[in-house]
């Protein structure tokens, strides 16, 4: 019976098609000018065909360092150049090894896999010879132009993060927001460090935002101030965010006494729903008044948070927190990965970026802790200086580290919610710091 069906269908199509054999002529005439002009095909002998096939293999492209291959850039030819011998051979191999290292860290060690896997895979694709996947017509280039060149994707991520963030811990104890301010020393301290290392002051500013410990903020700023370094900056930012549990504890212990680390903090008051609803609006209004340059970041974040707290658009808030942020994360990662092409990543600057990134996280942590010590001195209610470390953001990782270190010092001392305050304030603080840098270089 199915066969009959098939035959009838084919017959029908056949009949339809034959009706227009004469019509076809008409079409041919009209269409003549606009048919796709194929390049003329020149016949080749089988061995010529084989040789010309071998010419297009990846192995040949890597071994032959002088084949005149061009680099790829989403912006097209104006940003492309002839690849050097190193860039088109060992450079690719080193990058592929780095990508494998990132895979290993993401999968076996749990380093921020949600972003490092797409970034690293994008990096792998960007280093394929001849395929030009990072060019304007390649998959990575299309993605890059769709949402990274115009900073749309980082903002969408920030919107989703906003919809996932709960500001209740900050609202219960607002003054801990200042700890999220102190930790921004990670940004400005490393800015000085980057200039000392020899970076141009604008590049140094772009790099220093790694100290903000917020991926989308870093990508947003890197894209504005130093797009060529985007790959290295994003990799450094996410790698060190993943290393927060390794980097922070020694610094936290070095700067505090055992007594301080054992300080217990009271139970947080319950926060009224209206406070949570108004908070994103308040933050946005403040940033409008003081620092309009920060409003793209803070605006996107506040929108997500406001949608969630409004309680009347759960459909939209769920979408922001799930399918939308997931889709954008895939694209953002692949797009950023396009900047891991050997000719862009394997430059001395990347080494500098890695060093400064480590410096930035350390400086931010230290200043957060010191500020918390200071506040503890002058505050009526005791403040455990450890929570200052959460001010670097890296939400919610650093708040968890604080809680873990606190519990080790004094079992039963749960600092998590207290650390979440500076933690989310750190997100705002970094966005403000980013706005300041943008306003300087505007």
């Amino acid at each position, binding site marked *: 019976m199915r066969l009959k069906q098939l035959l009838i269908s084919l017959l029908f199509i056949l009949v339809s098609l034959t009706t227009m054999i004469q019509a076809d002529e008409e079409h041919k005439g009209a269409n003549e000018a606009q048919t796709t002009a194929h390049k003329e095909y020149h016949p080749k002998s089988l061995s010529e065909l084989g040789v010309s096939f071998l010419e297009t293999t990846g192995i040949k492209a890597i071994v032959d360092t002088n084949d005149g291959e061009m680099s790829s850039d989403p912006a097209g030819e104006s940003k492309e150049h002839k690849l050097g011998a190193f860039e088109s051979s060992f450079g690719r191999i080193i990058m592929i090894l780095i990508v494998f290292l990132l895979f290993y860290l993401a999968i076996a060690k749990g380093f921020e896999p949600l972003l490092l896997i797409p970034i690293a895979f994008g990096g792998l694709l960007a280093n394929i010879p001849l395929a030009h996947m990072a060019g304007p017509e390649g998959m990575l280039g299309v993605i890059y132009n769709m949402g990274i060149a115009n900073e749309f994707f980082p903002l969408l991520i920030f919107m989703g993060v906003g919809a996932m963030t709960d500001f209740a811990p900050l*609202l219960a104890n*607002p*003054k801990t*927001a*200042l700890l*999220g*301010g102190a930790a*921004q*020393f990670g*940004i*400005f*301290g490393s*800015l*000085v460090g*980057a*200039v*000392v290392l020899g970076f141009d*002051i604008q590049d*140094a*500013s772009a790099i220093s935002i790694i100290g903000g410990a917020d991926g989308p903020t870093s990508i947003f700023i890197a894209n504005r101030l130093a797009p060529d370094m985007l790959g290295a900056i994003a990799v450094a930012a996410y790698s060190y965010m993943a290393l927060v549990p390794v980097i922070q504890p020694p610094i936290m212990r070095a700067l505090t006494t055992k007594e301080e680390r054992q300080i217990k903090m009271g139970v947080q008051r*319950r926060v*009224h*729903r*209206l*406070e949570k*609803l*108004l*908070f994103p609006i*308040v*933050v946005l209004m*403040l*940033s409008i008044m*003081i*620092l309009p340059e920060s409003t793209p970041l803070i605006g996107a974040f506040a929108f997500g948070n406001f949608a969630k707290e409004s*309680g*009347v658009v*759960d*459909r939209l808030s769920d979408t922001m927190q799930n399918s939308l942020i997931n889709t954008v994360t895939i694209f953002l990662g692949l797009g950023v990965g396009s900047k891991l092409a050997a000719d862009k990543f394997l430059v001395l600057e990347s080494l500098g970026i890695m060093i400064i990134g480590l410096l930035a996280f350390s400086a931010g942590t230290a200043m957060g802790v010191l500020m918390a010590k200071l506040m503890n001195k002058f505050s009526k209610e005791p403040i455990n200086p450890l929570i200052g470390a959460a001010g670097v953001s890296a939400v919610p990782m650093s708040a968890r580290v604080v809680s873990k270190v606190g519990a080790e010092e004094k079992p039963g001392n749960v600092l998590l919610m207290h650390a979440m305050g500076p933690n989310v*304030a750190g997100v*705002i*603080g970094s966005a*403000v*710091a980013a706005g*300041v*840098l943008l306003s*300087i270089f505007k």
Partner: protein
Amino acid sequence: MAEVNYVMEALKFMVLGMGVVFLFLFILVIVVELQAKLIAKYFPENTPIKTPATPAVDTEDESRRVAAIIAAVTEFRKNKS
């Protein structure tokens, strides 16, 4: 034109930047504390804002989920007897 000392410039950025960040957060703290007081005063009960019924389009989805659960329980009941 004298050579620019960029480290000096970076230090100035630090002063400006940390200043603005603290200023921003400081005002934020004050506003938020004030707001908390006002809300506590004028909306004492923590049952604010009517939540209107969720939009119609959602209900079907919900009912499907409920149906799945009911099916599970029914299945279990059947298996037992």
